């Protein structure tokens, strides 16, 4: 059983990032898209923590950053949800493809 190193972490976070991106690109449901964004943010969190642990263990910036990211993510989600609800009110659906009136 080997100790996971920086590169494992980075790989993991990258994977997480791209999973999130993939979800964001493919999912039709707005809420799911929001969730995939959370994935992206979490991958970033992982990055920060990893860097902090393996490279700059004498600093705390990464950790703080992570905390703030979580907080912001929450705020973002709150507003996003509010907007989605409003969208549902007007479009009677939370499918992203029903909201493509504005184009060209």
């Amino acid at each position: 059983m080997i100790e996971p190193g920086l590169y494992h972490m980075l790989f993991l976070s990258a994977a997480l990032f791209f999973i999130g991106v993939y979800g964001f690109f493919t999912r039709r449901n707005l809420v799911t898209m929001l969730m995939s964004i959370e994935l992206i943010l979490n991958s970033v969190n992982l990055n920060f923590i990893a860097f902090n642990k393996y490279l700059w263990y004498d600093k705390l910036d990464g950790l703080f950053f992570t905390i703030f990211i979580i907080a912001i993510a929450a705020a973002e989600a709150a507003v996003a949800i509010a907007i989605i609800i409003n969208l549902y009110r007007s479009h009677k659906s939370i499918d992203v493809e029903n909201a493509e009136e504005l184009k060209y």
Partner: protein
Amino acid sequence: MPNATLILLIILLPLAGFVMLGIYGRKYFQNTSGIIGTTLMLISTVLALYTAYGYFFEYVKVDGVYQPLVPLKYTWLQFSDGVSIDMGIIIDPISVMMLVVVTFISLMVHIYSLGYMKGDERFPTYYAFLGLFTFSMLGLVISSNIFQIYIFWELVGVSSFLLIGYYYDKPSAVAACKKAFIVTRFADVGFLIGILILSFYSRTLDFNTLIERLTSAESTEFKSAVAASFMGISALTWGLVLVFIGGAGKSAMFPLHIWLPDAMEGPTPVSALIHAATMVVAGVFLVARLFPVFAISAPNALSLVGYVGAISALIAAIIACTQTDIKRVLAYSTMSQIGYMMFALGVSKYGGEDGLGYTASMFHLFTHAMFKALLFLGAGAVIHYIHSNEMKDMGGLRKYLPITHITFLIACLAIAGVPPFAGFFSKEEILLAAYQNNTAVYWIALITSGLTAFYMFRLYFGIFWNKEAHAHGEHKNEGGFAMMIPLVLLAVGASAAGFIPFGHFVSSDRTRLETEFHLMFSIAPVALGLAGIFIAMWMYKKQNDRPDKLAASLNGLYKSAYHKFYIDEIYIFITRKIIFNLIGKPAAWFDKNVVDGLMNATGNSTKDISETIKGFQSGKVQSYAIYFLVSIIGLALLFIYIWK
């Protein structure tokens, strides 16, 4: 020393007339304008005569040579050091002679028009234009600077344009004036380029300096001008030839003569003044002005002048035999006579006895002015009476127009070269000169003189004898004194002018040239002339079918001559078909479709592009994100791997 202000007055009085009558004529001088114009003209004529007298008799010659004087010179437009257009006055035998001729004929025409143009609604305009023309012509003859002569050259052109188009509601007149202007303009381009060449090499525009520089074999200018050559011909020759082309255009030399017959659309007095006596000889005058350069430095150019003159003389004479419009006949005869003057210059040499041709040419110019003006004015009287130019409407008019008849006859005799009338003397000298220098030209000249006699008397008999006379309604008189006085005066001139010892005053090197009279030599031409006269009498004195027979017998020649050898048609083909269709139309099309098309195409293609790429803005937030990520990665790859 002749007085500059006087000479200025000679020129400026007609201009004053033009300005005054042109601007205020219609308002204030509707009827008096004729008198005003004539008076001004009279004054300047007197002044001209006075000047001539002063120059020829009072002014002392320096060892027998008339000095060319420049009493006035003002720098008008400085190009570069040395090269400048100066407005100046040059006084030498030919310019003085021309002053006299122009003012005198112009005065005659002014007087004549008082009767001829009476009651015309644009009477003042007419006199204004006459004034403008006289001014320009006088300015031309006294020009001391080759560019100045070009300037007045253009001005006479435009005033002739205005006068030909005087009856502006007649489409034929409009066409004629356009044609006259454009053809001469075309020739003037040659003149202009000639000027440019000459001025470039002689580094001056002033006549005296230019002549002096280009005739002295050791001057640097001369050397450079001869050294530089194009197509094996020296730049100097090119320059002179081009200048001559300008002269040929104005003087209706073949093949640039086509405008002259049509120019007869103008009022007849105008034809008398411009298209017989004065403007059309401007070409001759120009060559005479530059004669030393021609004769000394570019004999080829001069011989070209000679041949062009001879050919024109002959062709014109042949055509004249077949025309039925009396003014056109006169026009062609004018062309033929100018041909005489030209080749007289052409066969002449510089200085002394060899300069006979020069003297003869100027002499003929002088006499021709008299009798040709007389002929035209006479014809005018006839037309005024008949209201037609066609010979077939005329005949037996001698009863109704006695004075006209006599004067016309005198003129005919003069031009036919019957002694002792003016034409005889001048023509003799020309033939003599030709005989001495160039036999080919001499024979052409001889034939032409015969033809001249023939067609002139064809005209004469056609008008005054031939078929029986029938009275014409309205006015019985010949148009009153106003029209008769000039006829008589000119008739006197036409009969007496020949006795002037012309060589004493005008000669190529301005020395005194004795022109003696060889009886033996002049038998041939006179005989030919008389023969022509008798043939004409035999054919046209009584109404008969001989002319038609003759015409039928030499059918081809007659037809082609009648159609003026189809030269007009050729020109029309060139302009209409080639220039308009092959250059003008394509140019316009090219501009509209290609150049402009390109400009519009750029605009439209931009629009099209923007239409085609609108798909990126699909409205799908997810595809936006995809573009986002893709371009991020693209940029990263670009800058990490490619563009370091």
